[in-house]
């Protein structure tokens, strides 16, 4: 269990923060040093709105250590409105309810705990949109 490893990821995990290329406008998740589109180094932090739709989904039955207490859990690749794909679990949805194209929104939930006495890691997951967004 590493405290620092999770701590330095907090802003990205809590607020879905990536980068925006100041030269070509591309929005990038996760953080990068070089824009894959135009190769610029001129990148600034950008917090994604958290809105998107399911590009693909699965349900995990055989989980890695630390996640086995949560099975079965749904996970997905989500296409965010701003363009990038992001890998995350789905939540607040039955395992047979997910579908490609499902509109989803980002929420902050427990990703895992390190046992009974260790760190709780929080981060982004996606749930079916609660209501229409302006």
């Amino acid at each position, binding site marked *: 269990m590493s405290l620092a490893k999770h701590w330095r*990821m907090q802003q990205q*995990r809590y607020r879905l923060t990536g980068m925006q290329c100041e030269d070509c406008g591309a929005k990038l*998740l*996760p953080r990068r040093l070089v824009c894959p589109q135009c190769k610029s180094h001129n990148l600034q932090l950008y917090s994604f709105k958290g809105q998107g739709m399911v*590009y*693909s*989904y*699965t*349900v*995990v*039955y*055989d*989980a*890695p*250590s*630390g*996640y*086995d207490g*949560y099975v079965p*859990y749904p*996970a*997905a*690749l989500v296409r965010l409105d701003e363009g*990038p*794909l*992001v*890998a*995350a*679990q789905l939540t607040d949805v039955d*395992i047979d309810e997910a579908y*490609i194209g499902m509109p989803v929104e980002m929420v902050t939930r427990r*990703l*895992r705990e390190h046992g009974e006495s260790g760190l709780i*890691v929080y*981060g982004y*997951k996606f749930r079916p949109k609660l209501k229409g967004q302006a």
Partner: protein
Amino acid sequence: MRRVYITGIGQTPVREHWDRSARDLAASSILQALEQAGIDKADAIYVGNALSGELTGQEQLAALIADFAGLTGTEAIRVEAAGASGGAAVRLGYLAVASGVHDTVLVTGVEKMSDLAGPAVEEALATSTDEEYEAIHGLSVVALHALLMRRYMHDYDLERRDFAHFSVNSHRNAVNNEYAMFRRPITVEAFEKARLVADPISLLDSAPVADGAATIVLCSDKAAGKRANSSVEITGSALATDAVALHDRPNPLFLRAVQESAHKAYAQAGVTPKQIDIFELHDAFAILAALSLEASGLAPEGEGVRLAMEGEIALEGRTPICTMGGQKARGYPVGAAGVYQIVELVQQLRSEAGANQVDARVGMAQSIGGTGATAVTHILKSPE
């Protein structure tokens, strides 16, 4: 660049070797290969291994194995690229000989998976994913492939059972491979009914991780001498990488690293995809097999599964794959798989494949790490 020949091979059976550790398995495959090659030492040893530290607490594996195999002092180094570790070790062995630095090298792939079980193994396998952006979300390697399979099914209008033919083919071929872990055929119905591991991937769609070691001896033409005429030659060798995380690739369903490495290897070997008689591909999951066929230029995009459905991947088909059982039925000692593929191709190209013999002149072996972030392709030619 010098020519590189394979003058000896050795392999252990693939299974849960409860009573043998990695150094044991590796050394026994080395001794077999040395004997076959008629030598008692080599200039260097490249050890392909993915998870020795994670699963058994042992690093510095190459020095350990060199010593245990009676080759103490030999230049030895371990190569890691997740599931492509074996292929990557072959690549380095090839470079050492082709470049002229060494005359004779050993390439050994070894993996010891069975010392841990269940979630601990899934956690170890997940080290091949992007830790900060995939593994942290509880996305196992299986789950990532499941995401690819689900999308592929959606894009190309396929059902789960359509993917069964890869496993059915691999199991059918393993019946005649005495080193294989599973030697009984399976049916499409059994594939459909098997329990889900990560929907839509089931137990019968997942290569079983296991223990094993395989070794090849690589020689320059000078070192091979007279043996060169009866030895299989490596005519193409290339390794390419891609973004580790699926979401960092512009099209997750296209394996760019596979395409890059395959096409470089074709070019070097002076062959076209049509001239490949056997393809020992990395069938960790059916979807990966299908995408490998496509990115290697052996099936158009979206047609990889259909190729299998039409029977073209069988021994008697146009593009035989996994001729000795592949990862699915021969078994999947992760970091060793890439070397097993070469061993199996050599058996085929030397006409030593027994009941599974394919009439082959040119074979291709391809080893993949994770969901396609590392791909290594080797092209082999039968002796004259």
